[in-house]
Every structure is written in structure tokens, then in C-alpha cells.
């Protein structure tokens, strides 16, 4: 069981901090005025953007996809913003702080999904989709059933991820700002509602861009300040880190965390392909005017994410020396004991050590802004699944007017906001680690297989997509329930039935096998029509002919 703890925290590093925060609930800190003042500036600026965006948002296309008018570079920043949550900074740096090189190995796993999205998905998403990824999956399949299923998959992923973010936000803000947990959750929930309801995708994109710039600037400055302490020499940094760390030279090479290859394989499979099934990430590809900009945006995003990950590695190693030897950051000043504020606060302590309270305040405000931007993106993706997929297409068969669809979107957003705040408060003291496994498990085993097969395999039929998707969904869900995160941590059993943290190694291949078998055995007339329709879809995927074009503002 002990062996699994770092894996769980690695997993959570991607999503929010809920992981480590939840088992040991963060203690409330004194009110941090620097942080609150800087966060206030961010909120005022983003609300002004929302006000401006609200005046630009006239149609459903503006609302869901900013009218397709975002440039590749802007969208690249926004995608990077969607992917780099507060915990990328905090979780990954803490992992390197604790484990050294193993943290680096996990960071690479968080990255390699992006090139694959560039090569196989970016342009097809843009050429075939309009507002949601269900557009692509249902392009030649049964509109009603497939769209309902895809919307359901989106909503499950969005809700799990929202709850994880909310719990992480509450704990982090309590710690950094000295606000009450429930106040923090409400502030996040209400601001998220304002951005999405009034400003739609235009506001959400700009909030995301600003936050990405702040996060990149904050992380890079911190790394610069930290490296200055070592004369900007990686060699000096490595030497001092080795002599400072309890496990010494072992921090420079692979360690015990990867002792179980099956667990590592399942985790990396879930991460690599889970990204390609996250609805709020997929939705970003519809905000650019054409496939050319879609490709550019994922190139920029990949660059920003890769750069930031390398910066975070420097932070982790620098913190081993700077934070790890400074008694003020340890409970009771005991260097071998626990860190003040829990294991995820390494980057924050480093900020205080090298930049003082003002810089700590800045970085805290950036972390808060980061969470806000991510939940806004999630809420928008969830609302579009409800209004565009379920309401406008399935329920009203495409007969709903834009006004009706927009109204439903806004109600859906309010509904999601209430769910997020309510569950966020309800789960305050729960261990929500399993929700992260569930989010990536379902994304990799349900959304991703159905989506990639719809794009690439002529033989896919409605029946195959539905049954394969359900097989992935149910197996991912079952394996997560039987995994240590639920079976042991939540249900209190002694030993997990499924000993690994992540379901993808088993549930993802199962989904693909069922999709292929059922589609092959499907001899219905509908299946034949669906296979025939692939040829036209293929022309559009390759040339962009007939794809939704940008509206001009």
C-alpha cells in the first residue's frame, strides 16, 4: 500500500491537489493580504473582459466556440491553460521534491499525449466538428443514440473533474488565502458562473489565456530566482540537491516508484490517451477558424506545456536544497518531519524563500486564477453537452431556435454550478483521489476509443460504438471501485480487489475490442449506410470542405 501513495499523488498532480489535501485536511492560515489584493486585480480584469465578451456574444456559435475567431497562438495559450492546472505547478514540483527523478518520469507521461493529438486528431476535430466532440462521433452514426451516449460520457467526465477541482480549490484557498473552505468553494463557483453565463467561450478563452501567461511567467520567474542561488549552474544544483536529500544520489535516477510495471503502464496509458478524451480540451479545437490554426494551436500549446514541465522540474530539484533545509517550512522546525501546509506546498514555500511574501502572494493569486479558469472551461464543456447535444439535437431534433438553445445553455451552466458547489462542499473531508482515476479512466476508455474510431475506421457502426463505449465505461467504473482508492480508502476494506490505481490498461483495450467485434458482426441496413457514409466524411476530414467557418466579429 505504501508503494502506491506516490503513484496516487502523481496522478493527482495533473488534476488538482485534492489528493494530498483531502486525507489531511488543510489547516486554515492567517489571511494573506498580498494574495487577496492581487487576486482581486485578476478578478476585476477578468470581469471587465467578461463584460466586453458578453457584448460580442450574439449567437450560439459565439457562445460555444467564440465564433471560431480565436487565432492559433491565442488558442495554444488557452489549451495550455486548460491543461496546466494549479497542481501541475504544485503537485509535480512536490513529487520531484519528494522522489527526485521518478517525478520527472511521471511528468513525461503527462506530456506525450500532446504530440499524438497533433498528428492524429487536431485537424480532424476542426474539420468534422462544430461545437462538441459528439458532433464528430455522430457525424455518420445514429444522431439520437450516439449523441446521447457521447453527451453522457462528456458530462460524467466534466462532473468528476469539476468536483475534484472544487475540493482542491477549497483546500488550496483555505491554505493560501486564509478563507473558509465553503467561502472559497462559493467564490470559485460564482465567478465561474459569471464568466460562462455572460461571456461564454470568448470570456472563458481570455480568462484562460491570461491565466496561462501568469502561470508561465510566475513559474519561470520562480525558477530563475531559484537557479540564481546556484549561480545558474545545473551541475551545482544537482550536487547540492544530492547532498541535501535524505535518499542522496538516488534522486538522480529511477527509483522504487516504478517497481510495478503494470501499474506504471496503466497509469501512463490513461494519461496519454485520457487527454484526448477530455471534453473541455477537445472543445478548444472548435474555437479556431480552420484546420491550419488548429494545428498551430496544438503546436504552441505543446511547446508551452513542455517548457513549463521542464521549469517545474527545476523548481522541484531547487526546492530540495532551498526548502528541504530550511526549518521554517517544517512542522515544529523538524527537517525530517512534515512540511507546513502539507506535501503539496513545496512550490509555494520555494516562492517565499527566494521571493519573499510579495512573490508568495503573487503565486497564490496565480494558483487561484488557475483553478477558476479550469472550472470555467469545464462548465462550458458540460453546458454545451446538455444544450447542444441533448436539448437542441436529441430532444428538439435540430428544431430549437438559437435563442432557446442559448437559454438552455445558461440554465445548464447554473445547474452545473450548483452541482459543483454542492458536491464541493459535501466532499470537503472526503478522499477524492478516485474521481481523478475515474475522470481519466472514462476519458481514455469511453470518449477516446469511440472518437478515434469514428474519425479513422470506416467499419464503425452505431451498435459497435454504443456497446464498445459502454464496455469501456462500465469496466473503467468497476475497476476504479475495486481499486485501492475506493475499495480500501473509501470503503475501508483491507485489500483492493484490483491492485492498480488506473483502469486504462484493461478497460481501454476492452472498449476497442468490443467496438471492432460488434461493428464487424453488425449486418443491419443501417450499418451498411454508415460504412458508406465514411467516404464523404473522409473527404471532409482531409480537405475541410463544408466545415463550419469562422464568423467575423
Amino acid at each position, binding site marked *: 500500500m505504501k508503494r502506491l501513495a506516490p503513484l496516487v499523488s502523481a496522478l493527482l498532480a495533473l488534476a488538482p491537489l485534492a489528493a494530498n489535501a483531502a486525507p489531511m485536511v488543510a489547516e486554515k492560515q492567517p489571511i494573506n493580504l498580498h494574495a487577496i489584493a492581487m487576486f482581486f486585480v485578476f478578478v476585476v480584469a477578468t470581469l471587465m473582459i467578461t463584460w466586453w465578451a458578453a457584448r460580442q456574444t450574439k449567437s450560439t456559435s459565439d457562445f460555444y466556440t467564440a465564433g471560431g475567431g480565436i487565432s492559433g497562438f491565442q488558442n495554444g495559450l488557452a489549451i495550455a491553460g486548460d491543461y496546466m492546472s494549479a497542481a501541475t505547478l504544485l503537485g509535480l514540483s512536490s513529487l520531484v521534491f519528494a522522489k527526485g*527523478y521518478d517525478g520527472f518520469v511521471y511528468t513525461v507521461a503527462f506530456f506525450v499525449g500532446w*504530440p499524438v493529438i497533433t498528428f492524429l486528431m487536431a485537424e480532424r476535430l476542426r474539420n468534422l466538428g462544430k461545437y462538441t466532440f459528439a458532433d464528430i462521433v455522430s457525424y455518420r452514426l445514429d444522431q439520437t443514440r450516439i449523441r446521447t451516449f457521447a453527451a453522457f460520457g462528456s458530462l460524467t467526465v466534466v462532473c468528476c473533474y469539476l468536483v475534484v477541482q472544487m475540493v482542491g480549490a477549497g483546500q488550496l484557498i483555505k491554505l493560501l488565502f486564509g478563507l473558509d473552505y465553503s467561502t472559497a468553494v462559493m467564490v470559485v463557483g460564482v465567478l465561474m458562473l459569471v464568466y460562462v453565463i455572460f461571456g461564454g467561450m470568448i470570456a472563458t478563452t481570455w480568462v484562460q489565456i491570461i491565466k496561462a501567461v501568469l502561470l508561465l511567467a510566475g513559474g519561470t520567474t520562480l525558477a530563475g530566482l531559484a537557479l540564481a542561488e546556484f549561480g545558474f549552474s545545473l551541475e551545482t544544483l544537482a550536487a547540492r540537491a544530492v547532498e541535501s536529500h535524505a535518499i542522496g544520489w538516488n534522486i*538522480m*535516477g529511477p527509483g522504487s516508484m516504478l517497481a510495478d510495471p503494470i501499474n506504471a503502464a496503466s497509469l501512463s496509458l490513461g494519461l496519454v490517451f485520457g487527454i484526448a478524451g477530455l471534453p473541455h480540451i477537445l472543445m478548444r479545437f472548435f474555437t479556431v477558424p480552420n484546420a491550419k490554426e488548429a494545428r498551430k494551436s496544438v503546436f504552441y500549446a*505543446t511547446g508551452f506545456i*513542455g517548457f513549463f514541465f521542464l521549469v517545474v522540474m527545476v523548481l522541484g530539484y531547487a526546492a530540495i536544497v532551498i526548502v528541504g533545509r530550511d526549518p521554517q517550512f517544517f512542522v515544529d522546525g523538524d527537517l525530517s518531519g512534515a512540511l507546513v501546509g502539507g506535501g503539496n506546498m513545496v512550490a509555494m514555500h520555494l516562492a517565499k524563500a527566494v521571493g519573499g511574501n510579495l512573490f508568495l502572494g503573487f503565486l497564490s493569486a496565480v494558483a487561484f486564477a488557475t483553478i477558476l479558469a479550469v472550472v470555467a472551461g469545464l462548465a462550458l464543456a458540460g453546458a454545451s453537452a446538455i444544450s447542444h447535444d441533448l436539448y437542441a439535437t436529441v430532444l428538439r431534433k435540430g428544431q430549437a431556435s438559437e435563442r432557446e438553445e442559448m437559454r438552455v445553455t445558461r440554465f445548464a451552466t447554473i445547474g452545473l454550478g450548483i452541482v459543483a458547489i454542492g458536491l464541493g462542499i459535501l466532499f470537503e473531508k472526503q478522499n477524492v483521489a478516485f474521481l481523478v482515476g475515474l475522470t481519466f479512466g472514462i476519458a481514455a476508455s469511453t470518449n477516446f476509443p469511440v472518437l478515434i474510431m469514428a474519425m479513422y475506421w470506416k467499419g464503425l457502426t452505431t451498435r459497435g460504438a454504443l456497446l464498445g463505449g459502454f464496455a469501456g465505461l462500465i469496466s473503467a467504473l468497476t475497476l476504479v471501485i475495486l481499486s485501492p482508492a475506493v475499495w480500501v480508502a473509501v470503503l475501508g476494506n483491507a485489500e483492493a480487489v484490483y491492485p492498480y490505481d488506473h483502469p486504462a490498461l484493461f478497460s481501454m483495450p476492452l472498449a476497442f475490442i468490443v467496438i471492432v467485434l460488434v461493428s464487424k458482426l453488425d449486418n443491419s441496413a443501417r450499418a451498411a449506410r454508415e460504412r458508406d457514409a465514411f*467516404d464523404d466524411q473522409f473527404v471532409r476530414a482531409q*480537405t475541410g470542405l463544408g466545415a463550419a467557418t469562422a464568423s467575423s466579429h
Partner: protein
Amino acid sequence: MSQTETSHAQRYARIRNHPKFQELARSRARLAWTLTALVLGGYYLFMLVVAFFPQWLHTPLETGSQLTVGIPAAAAVIVLSWLLTGWYVRVANTRFDALSADLLEELQ
């Protein structure tokens, strides 16, 4: 109604049978799948070394150095796969898009 449908179907069929379209689809698929195989292959090779030959990554870069081979190796997986995305985007945004624009113009 049915007239437009027929002409739509004919137009798509004409595109599909055009040699330029076939060249476009073939070369795009070749490049995209090759690069995917390179990135995933490189990554899983790295993971295999991590799991089964960890001491390779734990070798000092030079004698007396505390930096190990593993540090640049992990960074290289990130940087090289990013450079490959750059390569794909460049080829797609110039050669493939030009081919596709040519094709659509020819069949106008």
C-alpha cells in the same frame, strides 16, 4: 432537393477519385502515423529502460558529475516530440494545405 443531393454526392466522389486527393490522403497518413509511432515508440522505449535498466539512466554524465544521463534523456523525450509536432504542423500547413487548395480549385 434530390438533384442537389446527387450533385453533392458526385462532387465528393470526383474529389475522392482525383489522384491529387489520393496523394494527399496517403502522404498525410504516412507522415502522421510515422510520427505517432516515433513519439510513442520513443516514450515507451524510455519507460522500458526506466523499468528494466534503471542503472543506464543513473550513470553520471561525466566522471565526477552529479548530473545523470537520465536528466537529459527525459528532457529529450519532451523536446524531441515537441519538435516532431513542429515538423508535422509545418508540412501540413504548407504542402498538404497547398495540395488540398489546388485540388478544390481544380474541381471548382
